């Protein structure tokens, strides 16, 4: 059923969108071929999400035209987008967790006041869809009980059920294991084979290369290039994204580990609901090495970090920092013992975004006599420290009085890293050091961590980005369901790590 030559599924001409003084989309031109998988790539804040929100009717463009299937349309809200055959799978799923798959799919399209008739029709339709696209999900399963990969399928089914011909996926692999991601790409291939058009938004170059037919690169609100995927390379795309050449992998020499600096023994964490989040985890980190913790988000890594940092109490087990066993969970005490912590979520925990940069420079160290010799804060010293950090870590703009909310993600992260590293800690625990950070800053942050390692510090790195774990770690621990599934060397293959991440025991994998 191919109609050739078809009009582009979506065409944007001269689309502009500003938020106050911020020009989020500038004269965007984009052509998405029907029946293709089209990638849109760009750093955080490049304007990808804004553009897709315009397509899905969340925002109105200030100027410019949108063509769907060759005819000019206006998309005032998401209802209009749906009726034009545009469906969206959000990064954070929009599912009702305690409804079944069927109920979620028919939500908003119940077909009348009484559910029974609609439900029967929906079930028929759903079964047909599942067959057609090999999207196997049990219609009667409760969504909250499904693994994340399956929940994503429900989102896709929801869009298809509403007659989507064009499917937009926003950072779909952020929460998936490599294996689940591969399955997702197979599904996308299936959709394409059935003539659907897919727009894939991501910041992961690898996925673009693996899954798309064409790719458009955005930078600072502009569409800088569109390439056929077969005719481009990872290096070229990275350069287009950042606007300069970037090293995708920092160089590092072999580690020379020394004495044990961080020792975790049978650590167990039970959360407020009584669920065991960390199941007797034991490992050590020595001076001069980076130990990476790999795993899909939500398998106990966050709890591990917070337990080590003294934010969560241990239900049982022990944690030693620099040979001292910690007695109570007290972040201030642990800082004095030489432990620094870059938290996973800088907005939630690492920064007070309402504060200026200089006030964030003392967060956690505000009791340090350099910063507060008595009752009062030494504002001169704090400003000087902030200026120093900003110079050392190339924070832009180097303005200590600017509210941290107004720095870009990469610069915010640099402020946090600078604060923790410049205290000269013996042990550094880092969570997601480059989440939401642009490619250029990733390189700088990775280099910092390697330097710190070579200066003889012990570093524990938690990241859901497998590439990052593999680029930095000297040893890799893989976590699944609150347990350490196994230890691998720093040069372990992706498949090997991926198997452990999905919960397959090491013996079985071998």
């Amino acid at each position, binding site marked *: 059923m191919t109609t050739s030559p078809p009009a582009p599924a979506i065409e944007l001409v001269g689309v502009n969108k*500003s*938020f*106050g*003084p911020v020009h989020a989309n500038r004269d965007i031109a984009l052509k998405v071929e029907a029946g293709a998988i089209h990638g849109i790539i760009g750093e955080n804040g490049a304007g990808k999400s804004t553009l897709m929100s315009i397509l899905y009717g969340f925002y109105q463009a200030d100027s410019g035209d949108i063509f769907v299937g060759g005819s000019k349309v206006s998309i005032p809200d998401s209802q209009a987008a749906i009726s034009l055959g545009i469906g969206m799978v959000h990064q954070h799923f929009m599912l009702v967790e305690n409804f079944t798959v069927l109920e979620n799919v028919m939500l908003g399209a119940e077909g009348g006041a009484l559910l029974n008739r609609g439900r029967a029709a929906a079930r028929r339709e759903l079964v047909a869809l599942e067959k057609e696209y090999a999207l196997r999900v049990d219609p009667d399963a409760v969504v909250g009980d499904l693994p994340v990969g399956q929940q994503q399928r429900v989102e896709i089914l929801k869009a298809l059920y509403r007659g989507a011909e064009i499917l937009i996926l926003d950072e779909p692999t952020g929460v998936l294991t490599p294996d689940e991601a591969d399955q997702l790409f197979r599904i996308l291939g299936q959709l394409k084979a059935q003539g659907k058009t897919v727009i894939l938004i991501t910041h992961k170059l690898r996925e673009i290369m693996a899954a798309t037919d064409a790719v458009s690169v955005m930078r600072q609100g502009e569409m800088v290039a569109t390439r056929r995927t077969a005719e481009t390379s990872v290096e070229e795309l990275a350069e287009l994204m950042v606007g300069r050449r970037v090293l995708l992998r920092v160089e590092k020499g072999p580690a020379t580990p020394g004495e044990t600096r961080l020792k975790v023994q049978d650590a167990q964490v039970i959360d407020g609901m009584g669920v065991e989040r960390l199941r007797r985890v034991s490992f050590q980190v020595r001076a001069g090495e980076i130990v990476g913790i790999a795993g899909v988000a939500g398998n106990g890594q966050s709890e591990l970090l917070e337990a080590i*940092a*003294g*934010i969560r109490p241990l239900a049982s087990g022990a944690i030693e920092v620099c040979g001292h066993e910690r007695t109570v969970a*007290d*972040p*201030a*005490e642990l*800082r004095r013992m030489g432990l620094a*912590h870059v*938290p996973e979520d800088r907005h*939630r*925990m*690492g*920064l*007070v*975004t*309402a*504060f200026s940069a200089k*006030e964030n420079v*003392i*967060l*956690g160290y*505000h*009791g340090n006599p350099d910063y*507060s010799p008595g*009752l*009062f*804060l030494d*504002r001169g010293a704090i400003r000087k420290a902030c200026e120093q950090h900003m110079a050392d870590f190339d924070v832009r703009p180097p303005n200590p009085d600017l509210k941290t*909310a*107004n720095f870009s993600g990469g610069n915010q992260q640099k402020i946090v890293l600078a604060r923790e590293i410049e205290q000269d800690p013996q042990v550094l625990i880092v969570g997601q050091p480059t989440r939401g950070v642009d490619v250029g800053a990733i390189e700088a942050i990775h280099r910092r961590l390697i330097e710190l390692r070579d200066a003889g510090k012990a570093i524990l790195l938690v990241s859901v980005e497998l590439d990052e774990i593999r680029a930095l770690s000297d040893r890799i621990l893989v976590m699944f369901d609150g347990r350490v599934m196994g230890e691998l060397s720093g040069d372990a293959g992706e498949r090997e790590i991926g198997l452990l991440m999905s919960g397959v025991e090491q013996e079985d994998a071998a």
Partner: protein
Amino acid sequence: MNAQLPRWVDLGLIPLLNLIVAFLVAGGVVMLIGENPVEAVEHILYGAFGFGEGIAFTLFYATNFIFTGLCVAVAFHASLFNIGGEGQAYIGGLGVALVCLAFDTFLPWWIIAPLAICAGAAFGAGWAFVPAYLQAKRGSHIVITTIMFNFLAASLMVYLLVNVLKVDGTMAPESRTFEEAGRLPKIGWFMELFGQNIGGAPLNLSFFLAILACVGVWLLIWRTKLGYEIRTFGANPAAAVYAGINPVRITVITMMISGGLAGMMALNPVMGDQNRLFLELAGGAGFVGIAVALMGRAHPVGVALAALLFGVLYQGGAELSFEMPAITRDMIVVIQGLVVLFAGALEFMFRPVVARVFARTATAKGAA
């Protein structure tokens, strides 16, 4: 919309706009009653600023509102909503009065005054401690508990004034009048510096204490380590825990400072004006303090200005109801209510509009 606005717009223009709208609506109500709103404003301004005694009364009321406004403002910085200023001030009055009753026969006023300040603050802080502890340890919401503690304070004081502190043989539920040493000096000399006569107004030394408290709160919040911890806890509790700030400790300390400020308010009516302990001594100032803190954006300067505004409304309103009998004291309460509504509850109503205007002028400038 997270548009950045210049400071003067955020702190000056928007509160002013809110205030103007509040007065316009109030003017409409005055017109409905059948009076001339312009004339009403004239009466208010004359009553508040037209003569020395009026000014002194305005400042006397403002003193109360500064203390209770600061009380609410300090708690705001830790994201705690202290509705209990009324009760804390009431109990603070007990502390002040007990010191005066105990020492006024044999100590001079300048020794009694510092003791009374400490006692007032301590009693107010103590009254705030229980809700704070319950919030921090057990999660009982502080808004609910502080409201309940207002009622507890009222009942306790009625009991004490009727059964314990009342002078034998009298009908009035109040303590005995303090001796000379239990009274704060009036500050007529201060008014004379400006060529004004204090007349019979009870403006006293507490006014200066209120100004000092403003400076103190400013130093505390923006210059001390404790203030940093309070603001961190208020702005991002998770980051505070990450930074090793104990949430229980900060909640309790902040609330006790807040309650202490409310307790000090009692100095003004008890030791400065009536010279005895009496019923309803806080007179609603604890609640006005919420409006004052909201309007003043929890900043001491803003609180002082907002307190002055409410002082004007109180004093000028008394004059107004005297000159225009059709407008009763309730009308003043209506105006206050409107100010609270527009400056507090609808604080951000005009912000998007103002932000849009500024964004447009900014782009126009950028294009030019």
